[in-house]
């Protein structure tokens, strides 16, 4: 049973439709890259998967223990966050709140979970540091650790390497790959960089002018064919 199955999805805001007839599925342990031109609706698709906005049509089904509420999310950074006075530990712990219901304070389990997430992201020594003073790569690790507190099953990453330098970008990709390979976390990533996407992903979803969904190999063959025709 797939973790997420989208059928004939159409997306947009109000009466403006950006995408239609979108069908794809994501199974446990896969690494799906969503690529497409700017403005093709990548972020809209992600917001819809997260339940932040409703699809205009079609359906999204969740299975295998996943719901729209148990998806970890690595958002693009906002202006608010760049100026936010918060310690790394406070931010990572806040990932636990979704499971806490109305319990007002963090308990031992929450703290252990946060500690574990920080260890895996290699940011334990930063835990008392101020978020806004960290480098871009460190900030992304903090947000990844927070997402891991929210879920162990599936992570949605929105342009996780935007604005990072090449060395840190590579480290980030390797970190995500190890989450996927070693911890069996399903990854859905929005990316600009189609070459990098092809290197790490198991499946590709291309949206925009041409709609494509399939495995990496299928995508490569189709691309070769396309080149041959031209």
């Amino acid at each position, binding site marked *: 049973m797939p973790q997420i199955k989208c059928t004939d999805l159409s997306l947009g805001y109000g009466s403006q439709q950006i995408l239609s007839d979108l069908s794809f599925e994501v199974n446990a342990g896969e690494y799906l890259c969503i690529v497409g031109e700017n403005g093709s609706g990548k972020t809209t698709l992600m917001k819809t998967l997260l339940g932040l906005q409703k699809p205009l049509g079609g359906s999204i089904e969740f299975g295998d223990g996943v719901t729209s*509420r148990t998806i970890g999310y690595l958002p693009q950074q906002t202006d*608010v966050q760049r100026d936010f006075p918060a310690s790394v530990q406070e931010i990572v712990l806040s990932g636990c*709140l979704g499971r806490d219901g109305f319990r*007002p304070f963090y308990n031992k389990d929450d703290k252990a979970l946060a500690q574990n997430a920080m260890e895996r992201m290699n940011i334990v020594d930063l835990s008392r540091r101020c978020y806004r003073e960290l480098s871009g790569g460190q900030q992304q690790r903090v947000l990844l650790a927070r997402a891991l507190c929210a879920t162990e099953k599936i992570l949605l990453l929105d342009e996780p390497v935007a604005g990072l330098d090449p060395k840190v970008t590579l480290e980030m990709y390797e970190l995500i790959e190890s989450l996927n390979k070693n911890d069996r976390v399903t990854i859905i990533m929005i990316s600009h960089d189609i070459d990098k996407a092809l290197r790490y992903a198991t499946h590709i979803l291309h949206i925009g002018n041409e709609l494509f969904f399939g495995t990496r190999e299928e995508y490569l063959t189709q691309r070769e064919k396309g080149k041959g025709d031209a």
Partner: protein
Amino acid sequence: MDLFTTLSFYMSKPFVVNALIVGVLIALCSSLLGVTLVLKRYSFIGDGLSHVAFGAMAIAAVLGLTNNMPLVLTITVVCAVLLLRMGKNAKIKGDAAVAMISVGALAIGYLLMNIFNTGSSNLSGDVCSTLFGSTSILTLSTFDVWMCVILSVIVVVFFVLFYNRIFSVTFDENFARATGQRAGLYNLLIAIVIAVIIVISMQLVGSLLISALVIFPALSAMRVFKSFKSVTICAAIVSVVCALIGLFTSILAGTPVGSTIVAADIVVFFLFYIIGAVTKRNA
């Protein structure tokens, strides 16, 4: 009389003690949500609501209510909820809606006070004291004091219980929503609490100066401290200390209470600004 005997003379008066209790509580409450307001770009909503509270005061005065707090509180809370909803379904953009409601309330309030001016010869004095705060803090009724104590306790309890949630929706609302936290509900609660804070603060500094009470301590603390918890605690301490300095100064020097407190807040802000700049350079 030297300073000490003057102070102890005033401290023996129950109305001064009342004013100090209320002043400290208001300062504490107003500072708590300051960080959230500043970072969520809600500070303009706070400003708008304070004008609404002024309009509501005018209505209460026209109706000749002796205890205007319940009415003012209800109207302000309703407007807080409306403003929050408007911000969402952006037919009229959030900031324009705030401007509309706040300036409208201000105008209608003054108009009502003029039309129904029942013999009070000092209308502009009344208006001025509602806008800038007055000595009314020194003439609080027992009802006002108790109302203020109860509302302050509610605000503080809310803040402590929801502290982690407030942090979460302030830092990253989308993440909170996506991982199953009820961000909409928390936003609503925050808006209501802001309205409550504004209504009780009005007695201390008047409706035009409330935003200063909310925003200055948070901004000061943010210059120096780096975690949400330390910023919140520091803002609360700064706010209470400034309120006490302002209250004592105004008692001793006869200056208006509200503006003296805000002046103290401004001085502290610049102190913290300098401390922040110096420590950053040395770090």
